[in-house]
């Protein structure tokens, strides 16, 4: 695997319509049913769509209601908050790399597990506590090295599951 992606990870995400912040996680495991259940997704209300389509549901509202979840690479699942305010991706017994970038206040929090003094990331500028939007790209590169896959245009076009949380309603 190459050490660095061909294109800026953050530019690819924003180019696909990610806006108003970024709350997402790379979650260890391929068992999508267990992961979506752990995140509280309703088993009935789901559709399959690409990222740009999912972003039509993007709303910074105070109740977490819609997530987009699917395969990232062998052994890793990607999950993103689409409509909601706070994303809790902690799943017992799984390694999780949560990204929290709050657009309204311009703050990006360091990602637990992506440590700035880890020699695998010596060439990257990872925040040791809090950073801003500038820090996102290097953290996305770091998580790409761990999961064995960077975001690229094929990744953006892959369908994943857009689902509503159980009880998340109007």
């Amino acid at each position, binding site marked *: 695997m190459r050490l660095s992606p061909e294109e800026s990870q953050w530019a690819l995400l924003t180019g696909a319509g990610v806006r108003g912040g970024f709350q997402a996680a790379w979650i260890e495991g391929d068992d999508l049913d267990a992961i979506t259940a752990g995140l509280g997704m309703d088993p009935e*209300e*789901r*559709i399959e*769509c690409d990222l740009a389509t999912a972003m*039509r*549901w993007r709303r910074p509202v105070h109740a977490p209601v*819609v997530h987009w979840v699917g395969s990232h690479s062998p052994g890793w699942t990607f999950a993103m908050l689409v409509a909601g305010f706070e994303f809790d991706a902690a799943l017992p017994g799984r390694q999780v790399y949560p990204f929290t970038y709050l657009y309204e206040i311009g703050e990006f929090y360091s990602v637990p597990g992506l440590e700035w003094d880890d020699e695998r990331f010596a060439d990257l500028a990872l925040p040791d506590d809090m950073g801003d939007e500038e820090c996102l790209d290097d953290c996305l590169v770091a998580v790409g090295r761990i999961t064995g896959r960077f975001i690229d245009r094929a990744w953006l076009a892959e369908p994943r599951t857009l689902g*509503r949380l159980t009880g998340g309603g*109007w």
Partner: protein
Amino acid sequence: MSAELLRERGLGWFFAATWIEGDDPAEIARLLRADPEDGVPCELAEAMRHFDPYALTELIWLGAHAPGWSHAVTIAGPPLRTAPLLAAGRKYVHVVWDGPGPGVHDLVHSDGVTEFRQPPARVHDPGWRLHEYAEGLLPPGHPGVFDVLAGGGERQCLDNWLTVAARLTGRALTEEALSAPRLLYRLPI
């Protein structure tokens, strides 16, 4: 006051609507990739039984508005995609009010050739494309979280966009305008 009327109709916290050039709603439904035969005739109150801005389906209530103009109200799912209307060379004006979210969105307008967005706080910018229809409107003040809670500044912004749309199309969203039956269409996601 139009925003008040929307509240009475159950659209007080989320309202996404598009005024679209054209007298034939079935033709507009086709442009939006709906099956034109699929429209279910109903009144707004009946359509509102399906009201759900978080739904993973997309429903619009579409019908005649004024000579030369049709009107689509989003009943379920996210605000309408305007790209197919732009591609078809239709004029339109698109208004979104999201109370629990970011409030009143930028006005989206196409003159049939290019799409253009205007932030609600800049309703009085000299020379913006629909400036002639914004004359005499109240400035939005200082919209912020307290305005959203109080409903003041944000409701003014919504009223302003509704007025611009009414002046452009020649008809306001009155009680009467919302009382005529229209067609409820399911759009493909």
